[in-house]
Structures are given as C-alpha cells and as structure tokens.
C-alpha cells in the first residue's frame, strides 16, 4: 500500500468547502422562497374583524354560545367574520389551519362583497375521522395577490383539547 501524501487533508478540506457552497445555495433558495411567500412591504393597512369563534351545528349551519378560545375535541366550531369591515375590491379569503398546517376549513377567495354571505367559516372534520384532532388551530383572514396570500388581515388561535 503506498504511503499517503501529506496533503490529503487538503482534499478533505476542499470537499467540505464544496459541500458548504451547496449548503449556502440551499439556504439562499430557502430565503428566496421565504421572501416570495412573505413579501416585504405588503401592509395595506386593512384590518378584518373576526366576530368570534363559536360552537357550530353542521346540521343547521349555525353557531351558538359565546366566543371561545378552547373547545373539546368532540365539539365542532366555526369562526364568524364581518366581511363588511374590509374595503371593497380586494381579493381575500379565510382559512382554518390545524396543528399540522393542513387547511381544514375555508371561505373564498373573493372580494368582501362576494363573501358577504359566507360569514360562518367552520372547521371541517377530516374524512374518516369522527372529531377534529386535538391541538392548536389557526384561523386567518388573508389578502391575496395573484392567488397567493400576502398579508394576514386578522388572526385567531384556538385550542382543541384532548379530553
């Protein structure tokens, strides 16, 4: 077996520098992705009003009770949005996200005028499940630009308890 040349460490050094260059490129792509979906300077000044989050009856499509921030996993619930609080002509939608980041309820997209009849936005129980999964749920009213959400106009976080 031949004796190792002294500078083989340099080969390792250069290799890890090449890997690091690839790593920097990956992180730059990630940064570009972040800026694309979270573009700076998007504050329109508009604010949506979330009236509250209530127990929801899917049979009648109505809400009841008082505004709550915690629910049992056996309860169904929905957010009520006052679309008239928004200026006309902008493209908006409302979404529920579960703890895994999946969309589990939605209204829109459309203008506030078009969504006036969709004030109640319920969380939909995933197919194959009996109840909503426990965890933190986020409700957002978003302003869209070219179909992509660029600004959150209102936000509510509620907790679905395990027991």
């Amino acid at each position, binding site marked *: 077996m031949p004796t190792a040349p002294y500078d083989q460490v340099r080969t390792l050094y250069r290799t*890890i520098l090449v*890997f*690091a260059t690839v790593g920097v490129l990956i992180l730059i792509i990630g940064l570009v992705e972040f800026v694309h979906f979270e573009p700076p300077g998007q504050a329109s000044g508009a604010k949506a009003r979330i009236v509250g989050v209530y127990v929801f009856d899917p049979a009648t499509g109505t809400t009841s009770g008082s505004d709550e921030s915690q629910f049992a996993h056996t309860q169904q619930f929905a957010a009520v949005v006052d679309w008239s609080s928004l200026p006309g002509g902008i493209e908006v939608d409302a979404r529920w996200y579960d703890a895994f980041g999946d969309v589990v309820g939605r209204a829109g997209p459309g203008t506030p005028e078009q969504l006036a009849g969709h004030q109640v936005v319920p969380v939909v129980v995933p197919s194959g499940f009996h109840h909503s999964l426990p965890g933190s749920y986020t409700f957002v009213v*978003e302003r869209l630009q070219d179909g992509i959400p660029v600004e959150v106009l209102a936000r509510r976080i509620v907790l679905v308890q395990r027991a």
Partner: protein
Amino acid sequence: MRNLTTPPAANPHPRLRPSRYGIAIAVAAVVVVALVASSFLNYVYLDTIPGRASLYGLLAVALIALGTYILVRAFSRDRAMRRKHLIRAGVLIGLGVLLWLLLIDVFVFTQSAGPGVAAICVLVCLPTTGFGLLVVRRMDRNEKEPWRLVLVAAAWGAIVATSLVIWGETIWEATAQRSLVPGPGLDASTAFMAGVLEELAKGSAVVLLFLVMRDEFDDVVDGIVYGAAVGLGFNFMESVTYMTNLYAIFQPEGIGGYAAGFQWYARQVLGLFFGHATYTAFIGAGIGIARQLPSVRQKGFAIASGFIVAIAAHFSWDAWLTFFPIESNVFGLVEIHLRTLIMTGPFTAAIIALLIFGVRFEGQNLLDQLRKEAADGRGAILPDEVTVLASPWQRLKQRLRSLNHGGPREYLATARLQSAQLDLAMERWHRERKEIDTPLDAEEQLRLRVIDLRPRTAP
C-alpha cells in the same frame, strides 16, 4: 518557544495547559447560561409544560454536565485516582439521568399520553438507537472510539441539546405563528429555526469533545462518529416526544398506536441514519478536518462549513417535505421511502464519501507509522505485526485465534495490545504532522504500555 515546555511538545505552546481548555470553558459557560436563561424565560413568559420541565430540569442538566466532565477527564488520570473519579462521575450522571427522566415523565409524556405509553415508546426506541450507535462506532475501522465518549455524545444529543432548543423553538414558533402568513413562507421560517437552533445545540457537543478530548478526536472519521452519535441521541428523544404526542392526538380516534408506530418507523428505522445522524455528522466532519489543518483560518472555515452543510441539510428536509405529498394508498408506502431517499439520500451519500475517504487516508497513514515504528526496533511493534495491525480483518482473525487458544481472557489481552499499538501509531502520526501539544514522553509512555501488554498475549 520549543524550550517553554519540558519535555518538548510536538506543537509547542507557552503553557502545558493548552488554550483550547479556555475555549472549552467559554463554550460550556455559554451553554449553561443559555440553559438557565431559557428556563427562566420559558417559565416566566410561556409557562408551558416544556418550560417547567426545562426549569426544574436545570439541576439534572448541571449534574450530567459535571458528571460527564469528571468521566471524560478520569481516563487521563493515574489508575489510583481513576477509580475514584469514575465512581463520582457515575453517581452524578446516574442522579442526573434519574431526575431528568422523572421530570420528562411527569411533565411531558405522562401529561400527553400517560406513563405507560411513554415507557413503551422509550423501550421500543432503545434497541434501534443502540443499533445505530453500534454501527456508527464500527464505521471507524482503524481505531474505534471509546464507548464512554460515544455514549456521552449520544446523551448530550438526547438530554442537553433537546433542552437547549426548547425555549428558542417555542418563542420562534409562537412569534411566527402570530406574525407570518400560513403556508410555505411559515414552513420555511420553521425550517430555518429547526436547522439553525438544533444544529447549533447538537454541534456544541461535538465542539466540546474536540476541545476537551483531543486525544480521542483524531481526524474526520472520529468527527463523523461523534457527530452521528450526538444526532442519534437527539433523534431518540425527538422520536419519543413525537410518538407520545401523536399517540395522544390520534388515540381519541382509536388509532393512537398506529400513529405512534408510524412515527417509530419513520424516525427509528427509515430515518435512523437519514436524518439527525447525517446532519450532525457533517458538523463532526468539519471539526475533524479542522483538527488536522495547520492554519487557524482554515480551521475556522472547515468548522463553519460543517455547520452550514448540517443546517442546510436539516432545513431542506423541514422546508420542502410538503413538496413531496404522500398519497393515502398502498403506493404511499413506496413514496415515503422514495421521499427520504431523494431528500436526505444525497447528504447521507456525501457524508459516507467523506467517511470512506477519511478511513482510507487514516489507514494509509497508520500503516506508514506502523512501518516506521517497526523499523525503529524499539519492540513496541514488530515487523511481522505491521500487516496484521494495518488490516481490520487480520486483527479480527488474530483476536479469534487468541480466543481459540486462551479463551476470552486472551482475546481481550490481544484486543488491548492491538488497541495500544494503534494508539501509538496514531500518536506518531499526529506528532509527525505537529498536531498535538502533549509532550514527547506521552509517546514513550504509550510505547512502554505496549511492551507491558505484550507478555499477556499468546506468542
């Protein structure tokens, strides 16, 4: 400069205690301050269950930190003192582990899934993590790292690193959830958080090992072994956390066991090496390469490179996982494996390439030093032994011959002799490259140790 140490060191330094100990103390102090600050921040501002565990767990972390320090230093003391220090270290680590597990059980797992489920999750993750550590340690074919250090690395990953990231991730997630638009932007933010905070927390363990245990941290191969061990420890604790949490979430639907079982497979089988072990192995590789570089500037670049690759690899998995959706049918099972192979496979292949190169490089240089030592004729390595010592298979065959000849006692004696001879060759290699600051008589002591061990083995 050379006259400042007596006897002279290979890489002379003004004092016998190298400056790296100062750096190690500074890193350890930063870690402790971060732990204390995070615990109080969590408790005061978040008041979450992990926050309470973090606060009450400070004593456990301190006991483990002190115990591991005494443990790793015990082996550089003389035999009389070593036993005393090992007992002290064992008591401290034992107390710390028990206290920590108690806290984890009470505050985290038992509240989400109950103590029974938590215990089962721990038990099913232990064999797979143990297997991972066994494989990782065996990757160093020329000179295996001591189990005590591999286990210390894994324990750091499981206990200290996970504690370090709790506060940062909780605050980052809470802030992002309340300020960013949900979707890919938020996913990217969360991925940056996990990549940066978790790799820094895990990497600090490898940095400390590099600074404090230089004798056992020889090159890129050792760095990969220690880095992967830290990653496996982190993966163990993360697996238990996810399994218990998902069990609690899905159990009301009657599928808690399936959810926990899937997490176990994804993290402890499929992702055992394709995940945290790969990421943190890059940090170890960077530090291992830095170990053998001459200039401080190059050392800095190598270490930073290791961290960058680790963070990028971790980020790419967390951020772009959703771009590979899994169908809910039989083909989904294939997709899960393909996703891991496509997303993490290239990084794992890259670290394996570094490992193979490192093992070959190390092997060639050990052979060179074995030949030189044999040529010196001082009796520590005989000319006939060179080819055996240079080959892991030949060494194994020699040990098995000893086993047949004199039973387990002779097998162990031969193993100790081989290990001491390889330690001597490694010491010579580092001295030739001026990579060590221990005095020359350390090499002579290794030589005397080999000569002392030789009569205990069969001729």
